[in-house]
């Protein structure tokens, strides 16, 4: 099936009594989604080729001799589809019973419990009991390499994982081995799930057969709080969901966005949650006087910071992971003091996901390099080399190299606005603790120029405040009046001043984001914004 275009003719049909109009070539399953009817399914996934093997999506189509698999049947004019016809329900009931005959029914110790489609559909339309009286087939748990563990007894052989590795990751690692009820997901000799995107098979698995070793036995899914966010692990800006338990981030999962990451998140991104929980955080505003460091309140610390910065050329070293809002206020300080803003991006090997256009773990391992660039910051590998004795340095959540630290030592004043204290830092005059990006609201701009919102997923430690709030206050203390009381207002101020962001607002961005002026809109092609 080719993707529908504007010229694709529309087909009219009826699903569960509801009139539906969809482009020709759409499957019944997708057509039903458009009118809010979820046809139960396992093997079907919109990002994977059709397999049609689970037989769970069987529906009754009037005048058809047999039940039709909704995932593999395209819509036809005048079709009348009954999802919950007696015949279809009985067939699906049979499938559910059969899927469970060799299943260990170990939901109480299964990580998938609570987010398991086998549970969901069995509660919804399965049998209350099983008629199976025979011994169950047993296969031992297997390590699939990477972050993936395979529990074959829970596997329903939907082959989503096999198809993902073959058709999306283009790295054929998995297969269906053996036949009949002895079949299991096998791993080719000498291969492991070490592909940079292999972790997605865990999300794709509709049951508890493929599990994340990292998340294993950490939390029950119903204990988790979920927050929409954007990955800060590289410049791709994959949409994701931050899952927290008791104010600790325990898992990151992809959030679908067709224009950025479809349904996927790479393994590097998934593991970035670890630093979100780091314990060595700066928690109190601190002034370094002659008698050493002294924790104080915000007003005193902000006044002290303004005092040491005032009248000096401020060189800002800003983290490319900071939000657009924070970077905006930093850029105002740079402008006001005639200083200069820099950022440095760590790099690593690029790892594309070949089956999805323009999706990769990018070489630039920071989420907002593009935003920093748009706001006038300069990328440099030796950002502080130009610092001279009379200058002030403002370090905004950026780590320091030994060279940076030497430059900082030359400066006449040092203000640290940060979540943590860089190891190489030898002196600072004022320390202002900020929230990290899962503890605050804000936006990031990805490499193609898509501005995307992230929401607050956990509470900041101690007295730490959102970065944009602290920096807006610092602007105020420096005499540059800023009235932003919320992240939305901070963004509005940014949008009003920066032409690239003109016309944008939090409401307008929604949770899918939109492109900065001048960038190619929609699904971008490589090089469009390079």
């Amino acid at each position: 099936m080719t993707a529908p275009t504007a010229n694709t003719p529309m087909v009219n049909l009826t699903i569960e009594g509801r009139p539906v109009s969809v482009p020709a070539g759409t499957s019944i399953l997708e057509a039903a989604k458009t009118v809010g009817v979820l046809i139960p399914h396992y093997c079907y996934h919109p990002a994977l080729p059709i397999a049609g093997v689970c037989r769970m999506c069987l529906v009754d189509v009037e005048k058809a001799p047999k039940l039709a698999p909704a995932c593999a049947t395209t819509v036809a004019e005048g079709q009348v589809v009954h999802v919950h016809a007696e015949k279809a329900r009985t067939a699906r009931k049979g499938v559910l019973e059969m899927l469970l005959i060799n299943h260990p029914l170990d939901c109480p110790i299964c990580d998938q419990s609570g987010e398991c489609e086998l549970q969901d559909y069995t509660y919804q339309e399965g049998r209350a009991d099983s008629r199976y009286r025979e011994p169950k087939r047993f296969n031992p748990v297997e390590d699939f390499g990477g972050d993936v563990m395979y529990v074959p007894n829970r596997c329903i052989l939907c082959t989503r994982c096999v198809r993902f590795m073959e058709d999306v990751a283009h790295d054929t690692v998995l297969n269906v081995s053996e036949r009949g009820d002895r079949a299991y997901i096998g791993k080719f000799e000498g291969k492991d799930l070490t592909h940079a995107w292999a972790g997605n098979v865990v999300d794709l698995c509709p049951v508890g057969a493929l599990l994340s070793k990292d998340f294993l036995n950490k939390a029950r899914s119903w204990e988790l709080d979920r927050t929409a966010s954007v990955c800060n692990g590289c410049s791709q800006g994959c949409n994701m969901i931050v899952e927290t338990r008791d104010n600790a981030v325990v898992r990151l999962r992809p959030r679908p966005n067709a224009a950025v990451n479809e349904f996927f998140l790479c393994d590097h991104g998934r593991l970035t949650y670890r630093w979100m929980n780091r314990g060595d955080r700066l928690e109190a505003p601190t002034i370094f006087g002659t008698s050493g460091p002294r924790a104080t309140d915000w007003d005193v610390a902000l006044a002290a910071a303004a005092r040491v910065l005032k009248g000096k050329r401020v060189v800002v070293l800003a983290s490319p992971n900071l939000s657009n809002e924070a970077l905006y206020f930093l850029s105002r300080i740079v402008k006001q003091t005639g200083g200069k803003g820099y950022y440095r991006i760590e790099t690593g090997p690029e790892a594309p996901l070949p089956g999805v256009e323009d999706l990769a773990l990018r070489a630039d391992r920071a989420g907002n390099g593009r935003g920093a660039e748009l706001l006038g910051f300069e990328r440099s590998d030796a950002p502080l080399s130009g610092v001279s004795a009379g200058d002030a340095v403002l370090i905004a959540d950026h780590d320091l190299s030994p060279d940076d630290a030497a430059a900082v030592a030359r400066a006449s004043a040092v203000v640290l606005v940060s979540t943590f204290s860089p190891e190489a830092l030898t002196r600072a005059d004022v320390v202002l603790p900020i929230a990290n990006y899962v503890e605050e609201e804000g936006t990031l701009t990805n490499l193609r120029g898509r501005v995307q919102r992230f929401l607050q997923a956990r509470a900041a430690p101690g007295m730490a405040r959102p970065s944009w709030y602290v920096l807006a206050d610092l602007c105020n203390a420096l005499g540059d009046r800023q009235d932003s009381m919320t992240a939305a207002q901070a963004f509005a101020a940014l949008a009003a001043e920066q032409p690239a962001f003109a016309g944008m607002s939090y409401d307008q961005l929604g949770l899918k984001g939109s492109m900065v002026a001048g960038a190619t809109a929609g699904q971008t092609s490589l090089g469009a914004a390079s």
Partner: protein
Amino acid sequence: MGFPFKPHPRENTVLSKHFGQAEARTLDGWKARGGYRALEQALGMDPLAIQGVVKESGLRGRGGAGFPTGLKWSFMKLGDGKPHYLCCNADESEPGTFKDREIMRWTPHALIEGCAIAAHAIGAETAYIYIRGEFTEPLAVMEQACAEALRAGIIGKNAMGSGKRVDVWVHKGAGAYICGEETALMNSLEGKRGNPRIKPPFPAAAGLFGMPTTINNVETLAAVPPILVNGGEWYKKMSRPDNPKSTGTKLWSVCGNVARPGNYEVEMGFPFKDFLYDLCGGPPPGRKFKAVIPGGSSVPIITIEEAEAALMDYEGMVAVGTMLGSAGCIVMDDAQSIPRQVARLARFYAHESCAQCTQCREGTAWTTKILERMVAGDGTTEDFDTLMSLADDMTGKTICVLSDSCAAPVVSGLQKFRGEFEALITKKSVHTVPAIVA
């Protein structure tokens, strides 16, 4: 009746005429028996004209489904600029069926000729003969015959000097029943796991390597040369007068408890009773027939009474509640336990399920476990309902018909021989198998 026996006088040997004659395997021997005249004639004909002759003959697929061959060929859009393929399904794996094996063993050139004609008729330049992996002797014979035909220029880039290209390749399967399903066969030929594909698209639209493809059974293709030589009308006449829908001769593989098992070629509409008692020689001494699976293990079992009333063609078999299928006739006498036989058949399907569809993967294995438990004497009356309900779940709900094939003998066995199953549960009369009379 195949080698080493002489045909029965009531047989009509069109395909099996040369069975047992070693020289018929050679090119010269085949030519001396009138071979390759049909191909020469066909290469000079318009493809549509060949399709016309085959349509007129009423030839239907001999693999099991009985789809009209000429009609199947006409689905291939000639001149669409795409490469077309012909696949010959020689993956004869249906339990009880061994007719294609004999065709390939004794008359390999008949199949090559049939393939070449069919390839020309559907606009294909390449034909693949997919042979079952266990068929080592037919494979060797076919490969030798292909090499001989290629050397003699009968096939190849200039087939019989006609300027037309017909390549025939022999491909060996690796021992999977499911690869006899046409879409699984194509997957296997492509080097993939032999899993059936979802239809549509049908092979005539997108088959082997995504190109228009026709798949025909060995016996179907071997019947094409005589049809071309003798004309469609001649073939059509070999049928019962009141049923023109089944035409020609049919090879029947007979195994099980009959005096003379083997391959028999009779005209469509032959009385089954005469066939069993006259041609096959009746039951072994001292036994009586009990049941027959007439069309390979996938069709419903019928009782001997039903069989005796049946006529041997597609419609005649449907009339008694079963199917002609591949005409692999499994005959059981009164020494056989139907529950044991049905359990054995179910085990075969459970072993051969490709594991794609849930109902087939789990259902065949579950059915087998229940039946084997019943045979072992641990059955309960609830098992009847469970088996029937499983059979319902397994029928008409999967990609291919393997699970339907597993359900068919279970349902018919339970319906027609319920007493034997009940006896296993009540243990009133535990079935013992009497010694087989040699």
